[in-house]
């Protein structure tokens, strides 16, 4: 069928697609979670926002599990190095995601601890929204890797300028995306607040994007020569400008599509400057690449078949489910 190196290229792309899918799907419910205290003024507002994400957040989160599982299956060396190397940071993400996963169900049905579960929803959304970008910034910007391909830094190694700027950018992108989805699903005062928040966040996104570009320029000068990265960067600016205009005109559906486009373009930049690396090492020859971190050709082939059989069906019924729940959200749906 395909040569090994072609399969590796395909899996680099597919994992990018899964993670980008995660970003634009779970991104909006993470964003709504993190913006919850700013958007919701009344209990009805809260229940509207929860009803907007309630039926879909779980399916959205599976994109992360699929991306993580695919990384494990296709590039186990990179999965092992990153997940053990970034141990404490990933534990924080895990604890946040665990508490967040139960938070909406328990907020609705465990009245004695309602405030706690609401805080878990907010914090459990905000922390991963920030840390995902930091983690990505590290594998893109480069980390110390020893001769056995193990991560050779500490928790604080992860908190350098380039990764932090990526974290800020990811957070802004997720928040803006969440505000755009909130606008799509709400009415009245809540809608007005969501739109206003989205416009403010578009500016924050632009500032964080400019900062991240500057960090890449300083710390990763080779990346500046990537022509596709510049093309994607142009798409980011274009999408952002059109997004701000769409929000101003109250075209919420269009705004959400443009927010997704901006997010996808960010992933385009990451893919362009990262290929063929999975984890860039401070010492370049120790980098984990799609060639030296990969599974066998047979495993990549089997996985490709699984993806080709499974993912079209998944995309089909996910679209169906979003159509079932389309339109404005109403407080109280599903007992929330």
């Amino acid at each position, binding site marked *: 069928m395909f040569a090994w190196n072609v399969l590796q290229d395909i899996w680099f792309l597919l994992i990018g697609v899964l993670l980008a899918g995660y970003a634009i799907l779970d991104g909006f419910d993470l964003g709504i979670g993190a913006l919850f205290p700013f958007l919701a003024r009344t209990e009805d507002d809260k229940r509207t926002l929860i009803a907007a994400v309630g039926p879909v957040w779980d399916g959205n989160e599976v994109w992360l599990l*699929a991306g993580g599982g695919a990384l494990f*299956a296709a590039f186990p060396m990179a*999965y092992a190095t990153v997940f*053990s190397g970034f*141990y404490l940071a990933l534990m924080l993400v895990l604890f946040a995601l665990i508490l967040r996963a139960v938070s909406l169900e328990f907020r609705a049905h465990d009245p004695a601890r309602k405030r706690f579960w609401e805080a878990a929803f907010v914090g459990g959304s905000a922390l991963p929204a920030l840390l995902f970008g930091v983690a990505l910034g590290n594998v893109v910007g480069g980390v110390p890797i020893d001769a056995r391909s193990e991560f050779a830094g500490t928790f604080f190694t992860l908190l350098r300028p380039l990764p932090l700027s990526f974290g800020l950018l990811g957070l802004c992108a997720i928040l803006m995306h969440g505000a755009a989805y909130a606008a799509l699903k709400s009415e009245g005062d809540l809608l007005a607040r969501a739109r206003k928040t989205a416009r403010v966040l578009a500016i924050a996104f632009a500032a964080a994007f400019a900062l991240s570009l500057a960090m890449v320029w300083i710390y990763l000068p080779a990346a500046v020569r990537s022509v596709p990265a510049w093309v994607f960067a142009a798409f980011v600016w274009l999408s952002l400008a059109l997004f701000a205009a769409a929000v101003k005109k109250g075209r919420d559906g269009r705004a959400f599509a443009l927010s997704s486009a901006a997010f996808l373009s960010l992933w385009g930049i990451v893919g362009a400057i990262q290929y063929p690396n999975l984890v860039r090492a401070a010492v370049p020859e120790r980098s984990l690449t799609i060639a030296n971190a990969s599974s066998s050709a047979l495993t990549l082939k089997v996985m490709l078949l699984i993806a080709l059989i499974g993912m079209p069906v998944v995309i089909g019924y996910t679209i169906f489910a979003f159509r079932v729940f389309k339109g404005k959200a109403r407080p109280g*749906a*599903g*007992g929330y």
Partner: protein
Amino acid sequence: MDAVLLARLQFGLTAGFHFLFPPTTLGLSLLVVVIEALYLRTKNEAYKELSVYLVKILGTVFVMGVATGIALEFAFGNNWAAYSRTVGDIFGAPLAAEAVFSFFLESVFLGILVFGRDRVSPKTYRLSAFLVFLGAHLSGLWIIVANSWMQTPAGFRMEGDRAVLADFWQAALNPSTVVRFVHTILGGWITGALVAMAIAAWLMLKGRAAGKAALLMKTSLAVFAAAAVLQLGSGHAHSIQVTRTQPEKMAAFEALWKTEDGAPFTVFGIPDEKNERTLLAVRIPKMLSLLVHFDPNGRVLGLEEFARDERPPVFLPFASYHVMILFGVVFILLGAVGVWLLARKKLASSRRYLKFLLFAVPLPYLANETGWIAAEVGRQPWAVYKILRTSDAVSATVPAGNILFSLILFTAIYALIAVAGLTVLLRTVRGGPGDAATAGTKGGA
């Protein structure tokens, strides 16, 4: 403290806690499908109200399963990096396949089940119920594929110190996959069905929703009694497979120190590993040979056949294996008594049986957990049988202190989730079928 021990404790805690929920989901999703089918056939509104009731419970249990499952998808990279590097070529694929073929299916259609009753046609709703059932069972299949490959690896070759896939179907359908899958699924059906029976029993004892409680009892008792009997067969087949493919594990299950032609089945005993003997042993002569070889004089290998550093511990696998079997017998009796009472139309009035059902709720959970402990501790000292030792499988870069930190937080968070989850579930159960239970699905329209 030792990093290997801490990593094992953390995996044991996170997987053991997680394993409370998926079996419940397996059983409850089956019951929802059955009850939806009965509703379609009889048009009896009571079934619809029961379905609404069970879906609420299923929704809570499912969410807890999701929350505690995320940690496990990450755990192999977090704590078992050497494992991931050594066998990732084979072990990663079933985890990815589980996400693609089952997590999406379960999650998306559970959303429709819980939130969408008034937004989709009854036909689509029934289909969604079936797809949640299917997704839950496919998820079980893929994780069993992965686990079975650790127990009885097949379809691979070694390239240096890495295991590389040679034949996908051999690896996926390795010698223990099918029987382990059937055994685990039946354990789930028993769990979900007993939970539903206990709920029905509680409603009956309180004299609430009598008609619906009786229907729920009848349906779940049918599933429970059948699954309990079938489980005897699947357990037997599983033990034959273990004898063939992991003989030292069977020797540990039965605390069989010496190889015997005509080995006894030890009903009770306290294995003394140091002196290689079993204290207070009550044995049925030749029974083990008869069970695993269908020959009272068949040879069963004892622990003496295996190098000391390749033997599993004995006490824990022995004890948990026997507790599991004991509960398995209890389930068969409980099902038989229930069916007998039902046939004599005495079930609703038999308060003693109904009360016993309430107290029996922890038993299937203990059976699932002890069965799992027997299987996994019995696999030691290997992470992957004869390929990779557990002590060689951990992450080299994660200090013991970091694992201790995460272990403490996992314990605290899971304790909180256990308390809150139980509160929520009991509250939902107390709400009863019908009355207020349908209110939640109206708001979304």
